[in-house]
Structures are given as structure tokens and as C-alpha cells.
């Protein structure tokens, strides 16, 4: 898939893309990263002069939705950008090579670009039974992952699987699937969660690394701040209905038709950090809330295990039965009120009977 010494600009010019389109792309990407016009020039220069970064894209336990999202990046140069900006040396779902040929590329890249390639991981490794639940090229995926991570410059964790574990790590997690930062401990990891992440966010992260030659600024949980520092809720166009107290109560009510806030039907926007409400999906066409469904919080840790997607109050399983905080609280409050009532009655009985006790020491006036 091309030599890594070629620049991105060389490749797209060869493919017949005009310089005008190229500059447009730089401006759009710089804007989506929240950077100023100067950054667009920097980006153009970097893409013209820097050799393309070799990228190894590995697949563990996953559904390929991250790849599906990635190849649908809506920028004008979509396929060219993605496949030209980086030197995608290995991606078993996209590459033509297969079998031993494909495996050879892994070893070649690891040796030729030691410490200089980016390892992009889609999916995660299961650890149970020595990793036998995910065999890739005749070996447990976890072994291959550790091996390739050992010589990488940096690691990108694509999607909820690689970042948090996602559905295969949801309770009871029979295969013991774990996020990749549980097995890769000595390399910087950029988490780009989402199920899948937004295409523009994925290309944005790669553009940033290529342009500036460094990792984007990460938040406390290892996510790029530029895309994950605000909640869906903070930029939601239905937010005025939330503040006004106008909520959808059920899916077929008048409020749903009027496009009110989906908070009461379980929207996880207030606890979900992602760029959906600003970047949106499919080329900025829409995002779940705009389509009338609450956010399910797919870019958050363990989102499968946080109760129903359609309840505001999360159900708690620790008490044996599934109940919300309010159900548990009301039950406990009722029990305590009952206890207090019984205690009051007992106190009253004791006091009345002790009045007749001739040996009573208490001499209250």
C-alpha cells in the first residue's frame, strides 16, 4: 500500500486532486479540531513535507463498526484522505493481501519502522482461556497485540471496545474481554470511544498527529480533549426544552412530536462526552437525539451495564433485584418510618407502665 516515504500531498496530487481541494481539506480539518487559520497553513505544510506515518490497524473482538464509520468520513476527500494521509500498511478487513502475505507485512513494518508506526486497535483482547476466544493468524490476538504495541510510537484505541470493553466486556463477560490499556501499559494510548466513533473525529485525531507530530491533548480518561471535553447535553439543540422543563414522557406523546427533551425517557446526553451534537453523523446530517431517540451513552465506560437505555434513574443490581435508587430509597424510608412508629409505641407503653412502678428512680416533676 505505497511507500511510507511519500508525502500525503504527493499521493493525492498523483491521484488528480487539485491543490484547491487540498487546502479546503486542511481548513476544514483545522476548524473541526478547534484550531485557528494559522493551523490550516501548518497542516498544509506538514502534509506536503512530512512522510506518511505507517499505520497498523488491528482487529480484536469487535464488529467492524469503527472501520465502517471511518471509511465514511464525509470530508470532500474522504477515501483519499483516509487512505493517503496515512500509509495504512496493514488492515486485515481492507487490505488485498491475506494469509501469510498479510502476516509478513506486520513483521516487516515492525522491523522497518521500529518505534515509528502508529498502532490503531479496533476491538479488544479476551484474556480467558489464555486468549483462545480470539484467534488471529493462528495465535491469540492478545499476543499479537502486545507484540505490535511493543514497537509502536503510539497506540490509538478505536471505539468503545478498545477504550472501555463494550458489549463483549459487559456482564458477565465470559471471555474476560478487557480494554487494551489493561494489556498495553508502556505506550501512550489515545482513546477514541464511541460505538462507533464519529468518522470526522477519527480522521481529525490522525490529522492532528500527522500535522503536529505529537499526541493531541488528552483528558483524564485518555480521550482527545478537542472532541470529548463536552457532554452531548452541553451542545444539544433540545437543551432549551430541558431547562424549561419540557420533556417527552412516552414515545408517542405530543411532546415527542414537538421535539422536547428526551431526559425522562432515558437520554444519556447529560453523562456522555462526545461530539455528536456538534459534528453530528453522516456528513452532519443528524445524530440520535435529532432523530428522536435519546443518547445511549455509547462512548462512556460500561454503557451496557448502566441499566435500561430508556430510564433516567439507573437500576441498581447490587441489591439482588433490579431497582432504581428511588425504589430502594422509598422502601428503606418506609421501613424506617415503620420502625420509628413501633419504637414510639413501645416507648409510650413503657412510660405508661413504669408510672406505676414504685421502685422507679426517676423523679421527674
Amino acid at each position, binding site marked *: 500500500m505505497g511507500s511510507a516515504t511519500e508525502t500525503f500531498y504527493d499521493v493525492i496530487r498523483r491521484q488528480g486532486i487539485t491543490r484547491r481541494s487540498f487546502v479546503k481539506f486542511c481548513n476544514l480539518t483545522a476548524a473541526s479540531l478547534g484550531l485557528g487559520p494559522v493551523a490550516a497553513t501548518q497542516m498544509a505544510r506538514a502534509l506536503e513535507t512530512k512522510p506518511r506515518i505507517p499505520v497498523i490497524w488491528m482487529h480484536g473482538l469487535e464488529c467492524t463498526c469503527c472501520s465502517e464509520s471511518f471509511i465514511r468520513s464525509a470530508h470532500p476527500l474522504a477515501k483519499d484522505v483516509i487512505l493517503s494521509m496515512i500509509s495504512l500498511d496493514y488492515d486485515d478487513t481492507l487490505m488485498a493481501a491475506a494469509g501469510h502475505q498479510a502476516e509478513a507485512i506486520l513483521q516487516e513494518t515492525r522491523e522497518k519502522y521500529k518505534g515509528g508506526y502508529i498502532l490503531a486497535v479496533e476491538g479488544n483482547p479476551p484474556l480467558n482461556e489464555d486468549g483462545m476466544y480470539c484467534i488471529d493468524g493462528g495465535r491469540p490476538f492478545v499476543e499479537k497485540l502486545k507484540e505490535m504495541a511493543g514497537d509502536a510510537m503510539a497506540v490509538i484505541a478505536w471505539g468503545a471496545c478498545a477504550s*472501555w470493553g463494550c458489549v463483549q466486556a459487559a456482564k458477565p463477560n465470559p471471555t474476560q474481554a478487557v480494554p487494551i490499556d489493561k494489556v498495553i501499559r508502556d505506550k501512550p494510548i489515545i482513546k477514541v470511544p464511541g460505538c462507533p466513533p464519529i468518522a470526522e473525529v477519527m480522521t481529525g485525531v490522525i490529522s492532528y498527529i500527522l500535522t503536529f507530530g505529537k499526541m493531541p491533548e488528552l*483528558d*483524564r*480518561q485518555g480521550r482527545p*480533549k478537542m472532541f470529548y*471535553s*463536552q*457532554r452531548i447535553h*452541553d451542545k444539544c439543540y433540545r437543551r*432549551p*426544552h*430541558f*431547562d*424549561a*422543563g*419540557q*420533556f417527552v*414522557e412516552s414515545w408517542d406523546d405530543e*411532546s415527542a412530536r414537538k421535539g*422536547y427533551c428526551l*431526559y*425522562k425517557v432515558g437520554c*444519556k446526553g*447529560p*453523562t456522555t462526552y462526545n461530539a455528536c451534537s456538534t459534528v453530528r453523523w453522516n456528513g452532519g446530517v443528524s445524530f440520535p437525539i435529532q432523530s428522536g431517540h435519546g443518547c445511549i*451513552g455509547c462512548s*462512556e*465506560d*460500561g*454503557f451496557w451495564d*448502566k441499566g435500561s437505555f430508556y430510564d*433516567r*434513574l*439507573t437500576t*441498581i443490581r447490587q441489591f439482588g433485584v433490579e431497582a432504581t*435508587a*428511588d425504589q*430502594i*430509597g*422509598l422502601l*428503606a*424510608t418506609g421501613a*424506617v*418510618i415503620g420502625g*420509628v412508629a413501633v*419504637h*414510639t409505641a*413501645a*416507648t409510650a407503653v*413503657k*412510660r405508661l407502665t*413504669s408510672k406505676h412502678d414504685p421502685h*422507679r*428512680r*426517676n*423523679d*421527674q*416533676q
Partner: protein
Amino acid sequence: MAHDAKMLTGVMDATDDVIVAGPSIYVYEAPVRLWHWGNALCITILAVTGYFIGSPPPTMPGEASDSFLFGYIRFAHFAAGQVLAVAFLARILWAFWGNKYSRQIFYIPVWEKTWWKGIIREARWYLFLEKEPYKYIGHNPLAHTAMFAMFTLFNLGMIITGFALYSEGTGRDSWQAKAFGWVFDIWPNSQDIHTLHHLGMWVIVIFAIIHIYAAVREDIMSRQTMISTMISGERQFRDEREG
């Protein structure tokens, strides 16, 4: 009550025997009482608004621009929460200036035998196994433990989770996020923090029920004043016997 000094000898507090004179003892200084009642008001507002934040009231009619109901509910919650937090800090400061009873809620003397004995005796009193309770100037050991658990530990937990949740709105660069962002290291998905904070509300509701019941009951049943002490700060004793 016309007590003389002799009547009040041998009154016990949580730590040792002290001999006091006079008809009543000034226990809870003004800042402590102000904090107590301010705290009670804040907690009431926080519990009511907190319940509505979890289960919002029915949908408002009209345009979104016509009302700001949920905004006001959240505002009241955040305002009361910050007042509660500042009052808690002020209360800690007062422990350095105030009398020995102002320090009581911030620690429990687990190293003292008398305190353990006091707990057992108070527990027996509530189980109707004791004829009468001891007299205490400050909190009795059982109450003392409850106050420490609720007003120091639990209150702090609610303040920390509360500010962590508040930082989600103020943004990642805010001082709230810098000071309380570590909470997200423990619970990366803030939905969990919402759930715990909400469960915490019910713990406080339950505590309030027991707290009020115990105060009223002791006011009637014990050998000393309770409710009037919470208002005036003065503790009066109803008999002159020791213990």
C-alpha cells in the same frame, strides 16, 4: 428551674466527669446552631430539588422560552449545595475557635473505654433495656457516632460527588473539575456518580427521620433538654442525681 450548684455536680460528658455549677450550661455556641439550622434548610432544599432532578415534574406547556422551571430547580439545587459546602468549611474552621463541644462531630474517640461503654448503654436504652439514660453535656456517645458518620463523613461524600457532577456543567477547565475531577477516576461513567449521589439523598432522608425522632423522644424521655438546646444553646438537666 431553681437548681443550685450542688444539684448539678457529677454531670457527665462524653469523655470524663466534669463538675459544673449553675442552672444550665451553654453547650452549643451561636455559630454551631446557625450551621445546624442552615444545614437543615439546605438539606431540605437539596433533597426536594434532587428528587425532581431525578424524576422531573410533568411537562410544562407553551414555548420553551416561556418557562425555565427545570433550570430553576437545578439552580436551587446548585445554590443550596454550594451554601452547604461553604457552611461545612466554616463549621470546620469554627471547631478551632469554639468550645470543646464544637469539635465533637469531627472525630469519635474510639480509643476511650468510657465512650464504648456509653455506646452500649445508649443502645440498651433504645432497646428498652435501661431504666434511664445518662446525662450528657454534649452529644451522647451513640448520637456522637451518628453525627460524625452523617455530618462529617457522609456530608463530605455528598459535597465531593455533588461538586464532581457540577463540574460536568462548568466544564473541564473549571476549578470544580480540577478539584473534584479525580472522582471520575473512580467512576469513569458519571451515570454511576449520579446514582450514588441520588442514593445518598435517601440515606439523608432516613437519617433525618431518625434524627428528628430521637431528638423529640429524648426531649421527652431523657433527663435533659434537647430541642430547646438546639435553639438556645443552653442545656438544662431535670434531676440532680449522678450518672
